[in-house]
């Protein structure tokens, strides 16, 4: 704010037009959302569409309020959130560690390559029955599914980042007599930070796919459970409400990662 004193009027005008444009974009975004909700609500009210199969914003609001009142809302949200976050962290941490190991040993990397290619291409949901038998029907099975889905992606993404380390910078460090562990800590890990951030972003999505898919296969609680249950008993208000909650949670988790990214870039 202090700086603006030194700007020329033309520059101030430019800044103002930039600000106005971003305000306009935000207004348009909300207007579209509001309009869609309004059309949806009105169509349901006047029975242009069948609210029994399409639900409506007000029915979604009522359903969520009911869930809240009978005390199950936070139970379901908490269950899914716990599964997603646990799976996410395990996949990221283990994935990072395995990628480090693969970077360290060329032999290990070359030998394991076909295994990773096959595991990456395999649709993990095919392992559903096995997971139920191995891990039971509790949250563990869903966390396991989430890890499976995120892990290979995390490994391959991080390994790509590690392997893309600049050759000349490697030569520079070697000419200083750096050991492999020094090369790792001083160069490979910091230079792959952008890959780490993009890996986190990808894995946020993967974790949600994993937990919801896991709950589809086997669950007693959670948002995925509400969707499956709602579908089976034809309570589409419940399905829509669960999807809505999912949207909010996924957006929040992505926003947290974006915040982490901004903090990291600021430090850079």
């Amino acid at each position: 704010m202090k700086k603006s004193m030194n700007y020329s009027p033309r520059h101030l005008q430019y800044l103002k037009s930039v600000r106005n444009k971003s305000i306009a974009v935000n207004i348009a975004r909300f207007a579209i959302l509001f309009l869609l909700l309004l059309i949806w609500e009105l169509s349901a009210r006047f029975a242009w569409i069948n609210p029994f199969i399409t639900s409506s914003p007000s029915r979604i609001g009522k359903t969520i309020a009911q869930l809240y009142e009978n005390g199950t809302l936070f139970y379901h949200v908490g269950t899914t959130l716990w599964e997603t976050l646990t799976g996410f962290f395990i996949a990221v941490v283990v994935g990072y560690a395995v990628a480090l190991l693969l970077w360290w040993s060329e032999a290990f990397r070359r030998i394991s390559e076909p295994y990773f290619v096959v595991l990456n291409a395999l649709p993990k949901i095919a392992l559903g029955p096995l997971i139920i038998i191995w891990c039971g029907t509790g949250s563990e099975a869903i966390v396991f599914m989430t890890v499976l889905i995120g892990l290979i992606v995390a490994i391959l993404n991080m390994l790509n980042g590690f392997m893309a380390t600049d050759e000349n910078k490697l030569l520079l460090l070697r000419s200083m007599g750096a050991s492999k562990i020094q090369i790792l800590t001083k160069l490979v890990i910091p230079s792959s930070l952008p890959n780490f951030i993009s890996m986190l972003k990808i894995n946020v999505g993967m974790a949600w796919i994993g937990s919801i898919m896991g709950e589809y296969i086997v669950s007693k609680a959670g948002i995925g459970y509400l969707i499956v249950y709602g579908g089976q008993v034809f309570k589409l208000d419940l399905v829509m409400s669960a999807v809505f909650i999912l949207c909010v949670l996924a957006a929040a988790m992505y926003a947290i990662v974006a915040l982490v990214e901004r903090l990291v870039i600021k430090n850079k």
Partner: protein
Amino acid sequence: MKEVLRFEDVSMHYHSKQGETVALEKVNFSVKEGEFVAIIGPSGCGKTTLLSLAAGLLTPTDGKVKNGDVSFGYMLQKDELFPWRTIEKNIFLPLEIKRANTPQNRERALALAEKYGLKQFLKNYPSSLSGGMRQRAALIRTLAVNPDVLLLDEPFSALDYQTRLSVCDDVYKIIRNEKKTALLITHDISEAISVADKIFVLSQRPARVTAKHLLSFPENEPLKRRENKEFSRWFELLWKELNA
């Protein structure tokens, strides 16, 4: 004067699935303490191989590289400053690697940075510096561990011509000032003439030393040397030898 580096019949072969490449074939030369030696050769004749051999990063297939008990500082084509470290932290990097990150050594490095006009940039990140300043920071980083011999691998080829002339002048003044032995490898004939006491000419691959010249100019500053009328005579001679 003491000899700090000597190549004796050094050959270097590379193996790949496509075949065997002979990069160097019986290369002989030596560098004495305090000398500024330039090696010029056509592009792709194995210049970087030669520097890696000198620094002991590679072992020759045949022959001997005698680099005794001297320490080397390497300068590459680009500055290769780490963008996530401040200039100060970049300059301390070799100290950290050599586990010599003591207050005395840090102070010595900072004194060098200050002496050569980097003081105001110490807390800045490399991205905010000009190409010339970055190359100067790279030189100070190389000098931070006080190496006996500087190995320069076409250190300015990534800069545009105008910047190159002034940075070249700048950097070589610092090297002379600090009384360092230097081995420059380049394909740029005029750069070699403007800085070196001694020039070796390499042939096409497999590279051999085909000529050796001692240069004596009344002045040692690169830009002044370029103005000397001897300069174009040397240029013509070396150009012919390089393209023989």
